[in-house]
């Protein structure tokens, strides 16, 4: 059975830039972005969203309900 694929989505405008997710990601996918969002925070980004392994660590670190969403991709 092929390993499941995942995708991480970071909603830029929902991020408050606390950066709790950055050390949490075992694949080091998350980094500080360059853009200030509508709330005035420097949001984080995931440059390679499909490298996500779907562990959910960043999701549980994030204090916001919907800033991070992890999808499971079904072929």
């Amino acid at each position, binding site marked *: 059975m092929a390993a499941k*694929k*995942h*995708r991480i989505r970071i*909603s830029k*405008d*929902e991020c*408050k*830039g*606390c*950066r*709790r997710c950055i*050390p*949490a990601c075992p694949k080091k996918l998350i980094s500080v972005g360059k853009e200030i969002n509508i*709330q005035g*925070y420097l949001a984080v980004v995931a440059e390679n969203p499909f490298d996500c392994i*779907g562990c*959910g*660590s960043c*999701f*549980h*670190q*994030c*204090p*916001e*309900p*919907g*800033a*991070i*969403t*992890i*999808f*499971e*991709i*079904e*072929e």
Partner: protein
Amino acid sequence: MSTEKVKFGRSKVFFDPFERRPGPIKTNMHYCPGCGHGILHKLIAEAIEYYGIQENTVFIAPVGCAVFAYYYFNCGSISVPHGRAPAVGTGASRATPEKYVISYQGDGDLAAIGFNEFIQAANRGERMSVFFVNNSNYGMTGGQMAPTTLPNQVTMTSPYGRNVETDGYPVKVCELVNALEAPVYIERVALTGTANIIKARKAVFKAIENLRDRKGFSLVEALSPCPVNLKMTAEQVNEFIDTKMTKYFPLGMLRDRSAETPAGKVPEAPVRDPEDVKQLLFTAKEGSGEGPATVNNSEIFNEERRIRVSGFGGQGILSLGHTLADMARLRHFNVSWMPSYGPEQRGGSASCAVILSRKAIPSPLVDSCDLLIAMTRAALDKFGYQLKDDGILIYDTSAMEKPAVKPGQKVFGLDALAIANRIGNAKCANSAVLGALAAILGKFALTPEDAADYRKVFTEAITESFRKKPQVVEQNIAAFNAGCDEMSSQLV
């Protein structure tokens, strides 16, 4: 074609969007960046969703940063005064036993102002789960010292660090609760690294599972990051918790009796049908001969009437006022009755404020009155100034000389105690005063027909007031009639 399904995402237990939150941002919570409240909210929401109890959950939001939790959780919510969540939770869980009650509290809320409510609820094993956010300070008010602040920790109100000699040691809430018999589950977790958050998630799930199974009292204490008030980055605050806080507040489960505790049955809810409640509180009048639609059209109570009844404890002052209020209720007026008394059961001063009106009563406070009943000299000295310029004063002649009043005021004296003694029960003096009042109303304010009705409704109210002691009803009605007759003879 590939399809995507959400593996980790916004819980359905959260409103989406947060319509209740004022301002333009409806997607986010109001907490500071990196705050543990959000992390814990998400875990609780996930667990509520997992155990399928959203419909019947009552989330009690504290005073503190989480005061607006009801913006976020789409379930029953109650916002309570500072520290009172477990007390209100007790009420919610007992009055609506089918509900699942969550008490969510900060360390100032739970361990300082509300500690008694909390520890008593834990000791009684109330059916609720308490989530306790220990962030080592008062967050909402700007980072003051909390009961949980560490020794030497600098806060707004401990600028040189918490001095254990003057401020005591941090309060270990879980350990204190663990000394009690009733609680079912107690665990301390930390909202820091992933491993700790996974443990926290397990603990939150356990507490919500116990809630679903109605097993009693569960407590999860979460050591929680407050980066803003601790003036730290996300990483620094995690380290502070992991190295400093956990040294004083060790993580782990202190108790899990979930397995041995049988799932609770839903106890039968107390009667809540409003009609039944009315029946319980106000039993049907007997012998009035009138239907509930009886309305007295006399105009005196078209305007709000404010009454102060005063004397000393044990004279039946409160019950006199209450009978007046009952009288008005029986004639379908709006009424309020507000007692105030000293700490003594007998003696000391007692007074009550009664308002009768055909209109809505905006406030039960009385600071100026149309009628003052003073059964002692001290009571008159205390409340005499409240009598309006055209007000009526009734006083007990055995307690004082006829007091001087302003020109527009009317004053009537009655030896209520002598009447009551003649009837053989000194406690009936208050009913004699009511009789005098009925006579005064009849003479000055009512048509003869209305006056007859008021006499009747007063006796109905006395019957109602003493319905639990039928033997004294008769004596009180006799005192009422005697008071009425005596006052009528003075008035001719």
